[in-house]
C-alpha cells in the first residue's frame, strides 16, 4: 500500500519535471485555427532554425485577448491579432515593441502594410495575412443571385436552409449594422440596439443554427450540415478548391469587413529571440508565398507575390476587385465605445 502511494507520488511529480526540462528552445504561437499548415509549417521552421514550435488555437480576437488577460502573457511568444485589436493591446501593455534589428526582411512588406494605421512603422506588429469576411454557401441550395445580398440570411422570407452566423462580435455586429444601412463601426446606442435585435431575431429562426467561428461554420458547410455560413475568405477558398461543384464564396453587396492580421509579441514572451526569428522567417518571400498558397489569403509581403499561386492571384475571393474593395470596411478600435459594443453583443446572444 505504501509502495503504491510512493509510486503514484512519483508519477504525479513527473509532469512538472518533464515540462521544466522540455522548455528548451521552443516557440509558442497562439494563432487562429487552420491558419497555417499546422502539420508541416512548424516542422519546416524547426528544420531551418532548430526551434521547436508549439501551436495553440483560438477562433476570435476576443477569445485571444481574454486568454492573455487571464494570465497568458508569459505563455506565448507570438500572437496573431487583427488590426483593430492592436491599439488595445498596445494601450494595455500586453505586447512589446519589436526589435527591428532582428527583422531584416521587414523591407519585404508592401507600403500599405508598413504604414498601417493602427501601428505606423511596425513598432509592435508585422503583417501576417489580410482578407475579408463573406458568405460561403452550397450552390445547389442557394443561387448566386440570392447570395449576393445579406438579406439571404436576415430576411425571413428567403429560403436559405440551415446557416451559421459568425461568432465574432465586430464581424457579426458590423455586418448587421451594414445591412441596416448604418456604419460598420457605429457606436450609436440606437443603431447598436437595432443591430443586436436583428441578430437576436435572426438567431431565433428555425433556419439559423446559431453562432459559430468562421472555421467551424466552414467545416459545417463542407460537411453538409449547413447550407451557408459567414466565414473568412481564405478558409472558404481552400474548401472550395476541394469541392468546386458544390461550394462557393462571395462578399454580399451591402459590404463586409476587410481585415489585416498581424504578428505581435506578448509583453512577457519567454523566447524573444525565437519570436523574432519566426517573424523574419515569415517575411521571407518564398515562405510568405507558401503560407498564402496554403491558406488562400492575401499576403502583405510584396516580395512574395511572384511566388504566389496564379489561381489565387486571379481569384477575386482572395484579391478583391476595386469595386468590391469599395464596399469593404476596416474595423476600427472603438475606444470607450468598446464596452457598448460588447454589451450589445451580449444582448444579441442572450436574447
Amino acid at each position, binding site marked *: *500500500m505504501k509502495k503504491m*502511494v510512493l509510486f*503514484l*507520488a512519483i*508519477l*504525479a*511529480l*513527473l*509532469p*512538472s519535471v518533464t*515540462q521544466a526540462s522540455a522548455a528548451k528552445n521552443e516557440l*509558442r504561437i*497562439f494563432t487562429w*485555427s*487552420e491558419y497555417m499548415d499546422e502539420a508541416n509549417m512548424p516542422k519546416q521552421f524547426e528544420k531551418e532554425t532548430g526551434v521547436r514550435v*508549439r501551436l*495553440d*488555437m483560438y*477562433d476570435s480576437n476576443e477569445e485571444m485577448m481574454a486568454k492573455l488577460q*487571464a*494570465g*497568458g502573457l*508569459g*505563455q*506565448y511568444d507570438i500572437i496573431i491579432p487583427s488590426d483593430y485589436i492592436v491599439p488595445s493591446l498596445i494601450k494595455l501593455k500586453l505586447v512589446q515593441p519589436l526589435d527591428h534589428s532582428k527583422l531584416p526582411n521587414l523591407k519585404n512588406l508592401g507600403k500599405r502594410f508598413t504604414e498601417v494605421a493602427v501601428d505606423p512603422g511596425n513598432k509592435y506588429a508585422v503583417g501576417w495575412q489580410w482578407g475579408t469576411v463573406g458568405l460561403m454557401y452550397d450552390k445547389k441550395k442557394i443561387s448566386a443571385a440570392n447570395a449576393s445580398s445579406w438579406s439571404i440570411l436576415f430576411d425571413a422570407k428567403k429560403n436559405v436552409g440551415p446557416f451559421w452566423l459568425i461568432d465574432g462580435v465586430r464581424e457579426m455586429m458590423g455586418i448587421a449594422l451594414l445591412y441596416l444601412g448604418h456604419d460598420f463601426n457605429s457606436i450609436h446606442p440606437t443603431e447598436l440596439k437595432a443591430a443586436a435585435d436583428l441578430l437576436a431575431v435572426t438567431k431565433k429562426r428555425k433556419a439559423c443554427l446559431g453562432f*459559430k*467561428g468562421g*472555421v*467551424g461554420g466552414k*467545416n*459545417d458547410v*463542407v*460537411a*453538409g450540415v449547413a447550407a451557408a455560413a459567414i466565414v473568412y475568405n481564405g478558409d472558404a477558398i481552400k474548401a472550395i478548391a476541394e469541392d468546386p461543384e458544390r461550394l462557393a464564396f462571395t462578399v454580399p453587396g451591402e459590404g463586409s469587413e476587410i481585415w489585416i492580421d498581424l504578428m505581435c509579441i506578448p509583453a512577457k514572451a519567454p523566447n524573444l529571440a525565437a519570436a523574432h526569428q519566426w517573424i523574419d522567417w515569415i517575411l521571407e518571400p518564398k515562405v510568405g508565398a507558401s503560407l498564402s498558397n496554403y491558406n488562400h489569403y492575401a499576403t502583405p509581403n510584396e516580395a512574395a507575390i511572384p511566388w504566389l499561386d496564379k489561381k489565387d492571384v486571379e481569384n477575386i475571393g482572395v484579391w478583391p476587385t476595386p469595386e468590391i474593395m469599395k464596399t469593404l470596411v476596416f474595423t476600427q478600435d472603438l475606444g470607450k465605445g468598446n464596452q457598448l459594443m460588447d454589451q450589445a453583443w451580449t444582448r444579441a446572444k442572450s436574447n
Partner: protein
Amino acid sequence: MRVVNSMINALAIGALAFLYLPLMAVALFSVNATKYGLVWKGFTLDWYARLFENEMILAAAWNTLALAVASTLGATLIGAALAIGMEKFPWPKKVKASLDLILHLPVVVPDIILAAALVIVFSLLRIVSSLFDPGLLNMIIGHITFQASFVALVVRSRLAVLGPEIQEAACDLFASPLYIFRRVTLPLLAPGIAAGAMLAFTLSLDDFVIAFFTAGPESITLPLYIFAAVRRGVTPEIHALSTLVLLITTALVVGAERLSRKKVGQKKPINVNPHSK
C-alpha cells in the same frame, strides 16, 4: 403486478439504451472510412492510427492522467484528514455545524461558480508569483479543492458506521493512541478512503469546467481538446479518441469493481496484540 414488472423492465432497458445510443454511434463512426457525412463507407482503423501520431493528443492524455493522479493524491490526504478531524473529536455543536457547511459547499454550489472564483483568485495570486499562471498547478489546486469535500464526506460516512467501540476495545488492551491510529483506525477506514479516492479520481477525469477555466497552453487535457475540436467540426479522429476514452473508462470501472469486491470479500483479521508488529 406482472404488467408493472414488465413495464419497469422495459423502461429500465429503454433508459440504458438511451444512455448508450450516442456512445455506440460514436464508436460506430470511429471506424467508418469517410471524413464527412454519415454514410457507411467501409471499415477502417486509420483514424485510430492517426491519433497516435498526433502529439497534442498524446500530451493531452498525459496531462489528464497526471492531473487526475496528482489531485486524487492531494484530495485523499486532505479529505481523509478532514473527515477524521471532524468525526473523531468532541467539537462543540456550532463548530461542527459550520465545518459541515464548509464541507458541503462544493456539493451544493455548481462548479462553474467555483471555477470563476478560482480564475479571479489566481489572477490576484499571479501578482505575487508566476507560479499561478494558468497551468497544471492551477488545475490541480482547483481539482483538489472540490474533490477533498467529496472524499471527506465518503470517509465520514464510513467513520459514522464504524463507531468508537473497536478503538475503545484497543484502548482497554493498553494500546497507545498512535498505535491505535496506525493499526486499528486506518485499516478499518481503508475501504472508505479507497472509495473516496476512487470517487475523487472519477471527479477529476470527469471534470471539464474547472480545467476549462484554469488550463494553460501546455496543460490541455483530453476533455478540453475534444471540446475545442468538436466546436470546430466533428471528425472521425475525434470519434476514435472518444471511443478510446470510453474503452479506457470501461476498463477502469471494471477494474475498480473487481478491486472493491476483493476487498469486501477478504476481511483482514485485526491484530489486537499491541506488542507485536
